[in-house]
């Protein structure tokens, strides 16, 4: 299941959905809000385009790494330090495939899915990943 959600991510259910008789390995990536002088993180999505991109990435990962199941959940909205931003679960017959698949999905998600993060903290606010435009 692929989802972009305002609700808290509940990883245990995702892992249970990925568990299967023909899987010997389940690898999970959880991205959490790290305290770099941050108070809150705002996450914004171009929802329809991000879902389409995540479905494309899932399909690529399934076939490249012979995955048995893929689960992706990306949170949007206001997150506190320690909360989960993104969770990815990949199951496969063997651990090499599950690790590679999970790594592939998070790397591609970061490159390709239209999602943005704004840090609110002690040093003010900033959008992550690019210099502030001169006009702001």
């Amino acid at each position, binding site marked *: 299941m692929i989802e972009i959600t305002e609700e808290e991510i509940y990883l245990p259910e995702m892992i249970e959905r990925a568990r299967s008789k023909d899987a010997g390995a389940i690898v999970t990536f959880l991205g959490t809000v790290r305290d770099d002088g941050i108070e809150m993180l705002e996450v914004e999505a171009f929802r329809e385009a991000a879902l*389409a991109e995540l479905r494309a990435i899932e399909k690529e990962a399934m076939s490249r790494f012979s995955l048995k199941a893929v689960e992706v959940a990306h949170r949007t909205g206001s997150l506190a330090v320690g909360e989960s931003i*993104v969770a990815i679960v990949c199951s496969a017959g063997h651990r090499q495939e599950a690790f590679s698949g999970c790594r592939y999905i998070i790397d591609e998600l*970061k490159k390709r899915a239209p999602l943005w993060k704004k840090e609110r903290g002690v040093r003010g606010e900033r959008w992550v990943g*690019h210099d502030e*435009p001169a006009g702001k």
Partner: protein
Amino acid sequence: MRIVVLAFANFREILGKKREMEIKEGATIGDLLGELAAANQPFRVAAFDDSGALRDYVLIMVNRKRVSPALELSRPLQDGDELAIFPPLAGG
């Protein structure tokens, strides 16, 4: 013709999340961005450099497909197109 304009992240803060624009038949992606810039000084400063060229960090999708600003600013839009404007991606 009518174009739906979506903006995200810092561009949403400047332009609002969604608007519908009426532009003349045959207008290009560049024409639409030019109209937005003419009507909105903060957007002009954020999106264009002093020579009037689109800044590198301005990313564009038309109908949820990325377009290359370097090559496709002269591409004509169609009635009903959805154009999205956003900065570099930073999910996960």
